[in-house]
């Protein structure tokens, strides 16, 4: 297997982008990534595109070809493949690109993610997201996505010492980071009271415990490490790529408050990279809801089960803490265009490792991790990236 490096990254701003359509979004992200790698389009050997539900959001399928076409690559006939695993689609697209290069089949591969979510009514977008869970046996009976994560929160708070204020601190910390990220959907700091006074969505989760509906796209370019310096002075090495699955429904899980897919993918990634938790300088985790970040920190092993609330309240996951979590603002503040999120995580870690993260820069960042989840934990994908 060949070593793989990230040689270029690009990301649109995230938000409710009324003047940009699906095509404009991915072209903007792709162009930024190519420019970053000082690469011309005809050098691309293959593309993988993470997208959850263009079929429902914009009634468009066959987006692999659509993207290749609008990227001006139709006449080059490059293979372009859509990858879908609900909210983990982007992470999986990155993993497919890494595998393609590692195997020796392809050299220069684009991994992109895109979601245009605001061209349907808000009710239709939340209903589409319910399809990431079990439509027949969860959605049909009245489960919503926040409702499923709320049931994780109820179980967690029944068994472990997590206060409502500690849970709110996850969103407060992510908004603090988002306020320092120029691409973030929300660049305002909030307080614990902002969270506790917001609209109830699914008890105990309120509006500010939930990630928003977002439009956005991100793209990264990977190449063999041996060729990386042809394109950039600051290649970022892919140290591990791991993926795991679990039951599609929350009710079938071994433990409601543990995402076993995250545990498995995390352990595999640490083994593959031959690294320990103390080696990781920062991690982008999948905080689709505040409780999801609490579970992720524990399931990845950065603190013990039941301790993430105190760990967060003590500032250990903040900028300057023991393990900064979601320096981008996470899904909560940076936004969550579902198919693009996994690629944006790689974008953020690359910014950090290149010392390009501005006001949210982690001092002397050498190694970072990304964690992307599909559904309530039926898919998890973890990557470890390092400075060369």
């Amino acid at each position, binding site marked *: 297997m060949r070593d793989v490096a990230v040689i270029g990254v690009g990301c649109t701003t995230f938000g409710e982008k009324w003047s940009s359509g699906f095509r404009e979004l991915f072209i903007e992200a792709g162009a930024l990534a190519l420019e970053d790698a000082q690469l011309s389009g005809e050098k691309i050997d293959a593309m993988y595109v993470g997208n959850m539900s263009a079929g429902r959001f914009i009634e468009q399928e066959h987006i692999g070809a659509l993207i290749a076409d609008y990227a001006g690559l139709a006449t080059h006939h490059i293979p372009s493949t859509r990858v879908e695993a609900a909210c983990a689609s982007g992470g999986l697209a990155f993993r497919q690109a890494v595998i393609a290069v590692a195997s020796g089949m392809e050299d220069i591969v684009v991994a992109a993610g895109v979601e245009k979510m605001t061209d349907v009514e808000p009710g239709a977008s939340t209903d589409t997201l319910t399809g990431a869970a079990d439509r027949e046996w969860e959605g049909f009976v009245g489960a919503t996505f926040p409702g499923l994560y709320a049931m994780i929160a109820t179980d967690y708070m029944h068994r472990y010492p997590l206060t409502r204020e500690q849970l709110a601190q996850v969103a407060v910390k992510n908004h603090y980071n988002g306020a320092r990220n120029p691409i973030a959907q929300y660049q305002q700091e909030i307080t614990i009271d902002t969270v506790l006074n917001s609209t109830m969505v699914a008890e105990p989760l309120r509006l500010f415990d939930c990630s928003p509906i977002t439009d956005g796209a991100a793209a990264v370019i990977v190449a063999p490490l041996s060729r990386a310096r042809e394109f950039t002075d600051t290649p970022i090495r892919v140290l591990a790529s791991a993926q795991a699955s679990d039951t599609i429904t929350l*009710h079938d899980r071994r433990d409601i408050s543990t995402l076993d897919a995250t545990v498995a993918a995390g352990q595999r990634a640490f083994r593959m990279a031959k690294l320990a938790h103390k080696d990781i300088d920062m991690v982008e985790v999948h905080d689709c809801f505040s409780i999801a970040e609490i579970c992720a920190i524990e399931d990845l092993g950065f603190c013990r089960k039941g301790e993430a609330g105190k760990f967060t309240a003590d500032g250990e996951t903040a900028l300057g803490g023991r393990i900064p979590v979601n320096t981008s603002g996470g899904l909560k503040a940076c936004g969550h265009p579902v198919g693009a999120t996994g690629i944006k995580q790689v974008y953020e870690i690359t910014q950090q490792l290149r010392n390009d993260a501005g006001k949210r820069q982690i001092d002397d960042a050498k190694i970072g991790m990304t964690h992307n989840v599909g559904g309530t934990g039926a898919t998890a994908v973890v990557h470890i990236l390092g400075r060369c």
Partner: protein
Amino acid sequence: MTVARFWRKIPQRYNMIGTRCENCGRHFFPPRTFCPDCRRSGRIVDHKFAGSGEIVTYTVIHTANEQFEAFTPYVLAIVKLDEGPRMTAQIVCRPDEVKIGMRVKSVFRRIATDGESGIIHYGTKFVPVK
């Protein structure tokens, strides 16, 4: 949900007909047609569930998908059935009544309506056992 998609699951949704593996004895609701433990040596047969169990975890939904907006706030829970499997269902009770560990039994109820002229979806909810 189209008529055919709803109609083919009527025995499961109305009467809690799940499945059981005769090889290992494990029960499945929602039903499975392939035993994940015995795999190809499994022998799956229908099994009528008693409809009693207890609440594992719950939430109260305040912001619902369109079909369920008229019901908010409503209680949604994971119920562990006495035969072993767990399922997601609504609990017909006041939001302040629901508790982890509460005993519940199944009832036949209207779940949702497909618009004004669409089919009415019936299925299983649970009520507290007093």
